[in-house]
């Protein structure tokens, strides 16, 4: 961990979580989806590495095990899995985190700058992912079936983050797990609708997986 006078403990925890997300993205994109290893993504990771070099702020916190489980569920060398679990779902969740902390008066300037950069990286990925999914898997019901297979475990494990997110960020930043999931779901539903995925079926899948079914 690099010492940083202008990051307090809660923001350092946020940086550590984002560093875990983005490190996994870089590793998986490098191995299986190099088109998504964009300059914007690399810039976000470079900024994270100026402050965060290990998991010290996450270790022992209530978020350590849920983050480990979430990222484990998103890890694979298969391209379909990487495009869906990482490219579609984790990017949408990351984007929700970046947006909520970027547009937040309680957030310090370094964190806002990070979130600006991370959000830009997510936006670039969002532009590219529909084309990659269409080319690799297809759209409509075929894509929905693949999403149900590849993203189900990730969604079923995400609920365990709720308590830790609320405990760490709700009082000070007004950011709740429900807010983040609402943001991420809104983005995912819009993207999937553009990919001809039936909206009712997709929402029902999301609901079912979040219910742990």
């Amino acid at each position, binding site marked *: 961990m690099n010492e940083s006078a202008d990051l307090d403990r809660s923001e350092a925890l946020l940086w550590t979580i984002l560093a875990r997300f983005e490190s996994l993205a870089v590793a998986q994109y490098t191995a299986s989806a190099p088109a998504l290893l964009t300059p914007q993504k690399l810039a976000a990771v470079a900024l994270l590495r100026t402050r965060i070099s290990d998991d010290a702020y996450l270790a022992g916190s209530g978020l350590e095990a849920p983050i480990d489980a979430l990222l484990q569920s998103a890890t694979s060398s298969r391209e379909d899995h990487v495009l869906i679990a990482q490219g579609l779902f984790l990017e949408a969740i990351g984007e929700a985190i970046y947006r909520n902390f970027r547009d937040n008066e309680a957030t310090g300037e370094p964190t806002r700058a990070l979130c600006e950069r991370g959000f830009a990286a997510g936006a670039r990925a969002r532009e590219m992912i529909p084309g990659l999914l269409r080319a690799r898997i297809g759209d409509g019901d075929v894509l929905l079936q693949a999403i149900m297979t590849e993203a189900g475990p990730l969604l079923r494990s995400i*609920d365990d983050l709720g308590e830790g997110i609320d405990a760490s960020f709700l009082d000070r930043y007004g950011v*709740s797990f429900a807010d983040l999931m*609402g943001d991420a779901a809104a*983005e995912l539903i819009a993207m999937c609708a553009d990919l001809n995925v039936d909206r*009712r079926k997709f*929402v*029902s899948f999301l*609901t*079912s997986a979040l219910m742990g079914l």
Partner: protein
Amino acid sequence: MNDVTTLTAPRSRAEQESIEKLMALAIFGEKVAAKIYLLCAQLQPEYGSLLTTFAKMEANHGAWFLDVSRANGIEPDRAFADNELSYLLAQVDEHFAKRDFDALIIVQGFIVESLAIATYESFLPIAHKYAGTHDIFQKALDEERYHVDWVVRYLRLRYFDAVDEFRRLAERVNVQGIDCIGGTMMNISEYLDKIGMSGAYCAGAMMDGYTRLLETVGFEQKDATKHVVGMFMPLIRKYRRGEKTK
């Protein structure tokens, strides 16, 4: 609607108890819906005749469901329904005491109807298991959709060029309304599963249906989704933990 043939197919105890809870909620929920439309009629005499007709339609649904339950050897679990509906009735009384017609019409026309439509739609494919239910649920579903169409038209006119005002109203009403009706959706999920439906699919259909209604009155799609998912997430999390929502 009264010529229901008596026919009781063998059912497991779990299915029997589940259908007794679900039919009770349908029967007494329709009676509450009738009450809400009557209260709305009192608050807005301009629409009094129409809303009184809606109330009669809802009361008829309840009566049909009771008849068909008896014909199928289903004894509605009134205590379960009362427990689920008491929170809703408290909200309704509160809105009525404030003469808040628009809040009442959102609770009934959007939130309660979204639950009814999502579950009745999903019930139809399995209705053959309960003699005489398909036609009456189909008719009830058609009539609920008609009510919702009117509510959408009313709200679009009322809040034409005043979407921010509608947004504030919906957000205020939803805090309790979704907690209550969405909570009921979560509480009945396991019973829906036990009679051969999917509680999770119904919950998703309710969320999607409600989101679309907000969109028709002026919410942006992402905004509506974020709002509705954000309201349902605490309920989903309670479900995950095996906690009842109320």
